[in-house]
């Protein structure tokens, strides 16, 4: 299925924030925004929902810590208990450091992998930027022309009010 995309390119973050707020007020559907750096407040302005990655991080951390405590207990107290320096079989305080490290390792690496899957990002992936300079100094706002009520000319005027340096319409498969 094809859809029509309306793109407006801006030069600075204030213009972008302004135009995003304005199009949201008009009830237009934002497909995506391309920025060279994370613009603060844009997520709220664009109405993008919060990420669920913190939950993944939390669960993985718990999993890592739990597995490690169990593993340390199992190896030193159950599988092959060996008397080391008269310490009890289950030397829980001595297990804390490694448990903590494994928790951080699981949570950190797991979250990053989750990010790569969710975004998605992977080595060798071909980048599809709507406009070449969005990784340099341009901010691009992509709107979807949902139905006939979308008036390209009116939107163009709105965008240009926020110093759009370029406005463009295109067909896109999706």
């Amino acid at each position: 299925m094809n859809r029509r995309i309306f793109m407006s390119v801006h030069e600075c973050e204030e213009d972008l924030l302004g135009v995003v707020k304005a199009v949201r007020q008009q009830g237009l559907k934002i497909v995506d925004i391309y920025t060279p750096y994370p613009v603060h407040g844009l997520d709220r302005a664009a109405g993008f929902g919060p990420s669920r990655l913190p939950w993944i991080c939390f669960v993985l951390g718990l999993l890592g810590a739990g597995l490690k405590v169990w593993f340390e207990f199992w190896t030193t107290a159950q599988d092959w208990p060996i008397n080391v320096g008269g310490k009890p079989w289950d030397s829980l305080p001595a297990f804390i450091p490694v448990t903590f490290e494994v928790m951080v390792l699981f949570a950190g690496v797991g979250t990053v992998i989750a990010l790569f899957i969710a975004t998605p990002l992977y080595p060798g992936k071909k980048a599809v930027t709507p406009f070449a300079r969005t990784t340099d100094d341009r901010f691009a706002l992509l709107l979807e022309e949902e139905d006939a009520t979308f008036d390209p000319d009116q939107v163009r005027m709105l965008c240009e009010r926020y110093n759009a340096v370029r406005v463009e319409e295109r067909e896109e498969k999706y």
Partner: protein
Amino acid sequence: MPVTVGAINTAAVSGIPAASEGENYTLVLYPKVGLGDGRHAYNSWLQELPDPVTKVTWDNYACLSVAAARELGVEQGDVLRIAAGGSDESSTLELPAYIQPGQHDKVVAVAMGYGQVSSARFVDAGPEWILRRPTVGDNGLVGKNAAPLLSLEGGGLRYIRPGVSVSKTGRKTELACTQTHHTITVPAELATADTLRRPIVQETTLAAFLKDPHSGQHHFHVFEGDLYPAEDHPYTGHRWMMAIDLTSCSGCSACVVACQVENNVPVVGRDEVLRRRDMQWMRIDRYYSGEGDEVDVIHQPMLCQHCENASCENVCPVLATVHTDEGLNAQVYNRCVGTRYCANNCAYKVRRFNWFNYLHEDEVENLVLNPDVSVRSRGIMEKCSFCVQRIQEAKIEAKRHGEPLADGAVKPACQQSCPMQAIVFGDANNPDSQIAKLIQSPRQFRVLEEINVRPSVHYLTLVRNRTEEEGSVHHG
């Protein structure tokens, strides 16, 4: 138990001339403990055996008293020329000085048994690497032969020669010493008065001991209770322990050699001893206590203490040193990766590390390797095992014959060779054993008891045969 001391036969020493006056010294030649008159000079074990008093290996030296050294302006290691009159080469000897507290001020003492042709075989002793220094001296031999300075008098050899002159040559050599701090006290400038003497040896006098068998004991803050549940590690079978009687120990070092022979402990050569890497599992710590030249000597055999709460075990990352259920601190050579953490964390510094591939240097030694003990390669920690190979053998034999293990059936090499029977080893869980009784002795103490590592090696207070109750005994 009263002790009687036999009368000294003064007639036997009447022939010794009085100490010479003025610049002249009396040269005393004495046979070396290990080498004898030199007949054992080919034996690398004995060459590397530290002298019981000076702790020097691989060399002979001229012992001077502290006062004589001060008078001559001599420091340890200064090469001295000892000239015994006469112009020929054989009547002079150049040897490094060793300053010996407690020696007569007018005596210079030199060990025999060195400079033997048979010691030329040690030219390659020790590991081969770029910074190594040779084991033999400039003459290609170990030490200098002092025999030409013997004199023949009345058909007998005289080991004492008065009227020798001692002068400095200006050269200096290092002596390969296994112990470089000689007193039981720490340097005075680095201590407060009450921390000067370390409470690691208990000693008392006979008079005080007869009055109170507990005399000489230190009263540590003994650790009450334990953080850890004791039921995790009950010692229900055998519980191997050792007791060493400091009163009996004469420092002869037979145990040191016996242990080296039994356990395939390598000989490392002079350079390695100089680098403080001697490998003997058992050492005899010799401390001087007392002031100036008036010193008492303490010999304290020191070996792995097989601590119940061994600090070495906790730190090994790979479980190469762990505890057995018979109370042994096991060192598993083939598991060791050589982090040396255990040696660092040993309060007694009894762990030995194979810095190089040591053995296989000496062909003769390799012929007498004990097949019952692994030969350790480089990068591995080793230490006293309480001769666990003998324990295993005795246990299996007892089981084979269906008999309980008798007390005394296991004798580690040190105990076996101790002429004073100062070392007793056995199963402390056997109430009839000798060791079980000794650890109840009022003289019993353990070294560094206050750090709660719970050593399995017990010592018995050194009782000096003195009538005064205090004498030169210094309490820490």
